[in-house]
């Protein structure tokens, strides 16, 4: 009887660990490191643009789950795309984002993120890390990082700036493009190929 009880206990603890809630402290620490390395060490440094992009690419691909974000932004078209289109889209999407975001992060030059705790997500595997960035003379801008636990490894799956979700914005943009393009998904791929050239 005692053995069965122990087996049951072990079984449930394994199940529990598989669906464990995200560790909020680790999520905050991850974003602290990301902002420190990304903003303070890269953007604020006097390294060349090439070196900056190189480090930024590494930081971006390591900390953001661009595979997942790419799938998310295609919405219902993800399943309509064939395997080769899916693969090419993810590769192009990553490239396009690294290129555009390294420029966009320049906006944060000389600024320091202030951490404002976390907000739970409806998904226990995810959490919002709340930060603020001073902008000029106005009220600080709110930047929320949606962090997901991918089997123990934390990854950013969305950034919400002043209530604007970048993942949602991209999804609206990409799905609208595909629905209007006579070539559908292929039209999107052609456009992205030109952009990353």
């Amino acid at each position, binding site marked *: 009887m005692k053995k069965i009880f122990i087996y049951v206990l072990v079984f449930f603890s394994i199940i529990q660990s598989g669906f464990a809630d995200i560790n909020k402290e680790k999520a905050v620490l991850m974003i602290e490191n990301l902002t420190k390395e990304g903003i303070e060490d890269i953007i604020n440094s006097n390294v060349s643009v090439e070196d900056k992009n190189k480090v930024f690419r590494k930081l971006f691909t390591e900390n953001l789950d661009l595979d*997942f974000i790419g*799938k*998310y932004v295609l919405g219902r078209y*993800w399943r309509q795309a064939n395997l080769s289109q899916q693969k090419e889209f993810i590769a192009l999407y990553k490239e*396009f984002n690294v290129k*555009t*975001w390294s*420029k*966009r992060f*320049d*906006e944060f030059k000389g600024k320091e993120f202030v951490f404002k705790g976390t*907000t*739970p*997500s*409806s*998904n226990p595997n*995810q959490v*919002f890390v709340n930060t603020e960035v001073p*902008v*000029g*003379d*106005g*009220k*600080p*801008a709110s930047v*929320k990082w*949606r962090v*997901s636990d*991918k089997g123990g490894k934390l990854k950013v*799956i*969305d950034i*919400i*700036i*002043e*209530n*604007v*979700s970048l*993942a*949602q*914005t*991209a999804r*609206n*943009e*990409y799905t*609208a*493009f595909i629905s*209007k393009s006579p070539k559908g998904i292929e039209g*999107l791929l052609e*456009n*992205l190929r030109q*952009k990353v050239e």
Partner: protein
Amino acid sequence: MSNKILTLLLFFSISLSGCASSSQQVSDVSTLEKYNRAMFSFNNKVDKYVVRPVAKGYKAVTNKYIRTRVSNFFNNIDEPVSAANHILQGEFGGTGTNLSRFVINTTLGVAGLFDVATSLGVQKDKTSFDETMATWCIPDGPFVVLPVIGPGTPRSVVGFVADGYSSPAYWVAHEGNDDAMSAYYWAVGLKYVNLMAENITFLESLEEGSIDYYEAVKSAYLQNRGRLKKCVKKDDVTETPNFDFDMDEMDYN
């Protein structure tokens, strides 16, 4: 995206007359979208060939210090407008904050050029008639793009016009002679150019990083409006933030 960008988007808001029905909210119908896209394209050309060159020129002949003084000055003029809107929203604490800031910055801050109030711990608490209408449960209406002005909704336009007419600067100019009114319009132009100059790099990077710039601006604009205060109805329950939409990995495996 900075607060200023969002202010910029709101600043551009002007619209069709009247309010649309709630069923039209957030999404625009195809005929409206055709118009919106055409107007967006026209505005982009105006922006590219007129507004941006002027803003770049202004940025070249001013420094950050001057642009901050200009922006402080206009922010200070807007404090009484926020104060009135806080009353309409029943938030009298906010009114007190706005009026305190106005008195402090107009006197100690040399006509609002310096934001002394923030240094003294009286933080900004800006609001608008658009937000006041939101607290009154007035629907936002569809997304519309207006000539030159840019993106907006019917409610944002009504708010924009109401705030403009309730500004003390407008009434001072209105009571004066023609020169005073011209000076007012030049000041409004300066406010716009100053705002553009501060955000030009961001706007260019946003366009460069888009595959459908119109859709990106529309989506960001409508999402950003979610930050406005909402009306509280009896049945309302505490909600998770509206950006906490479903992002479940299992959906895409």
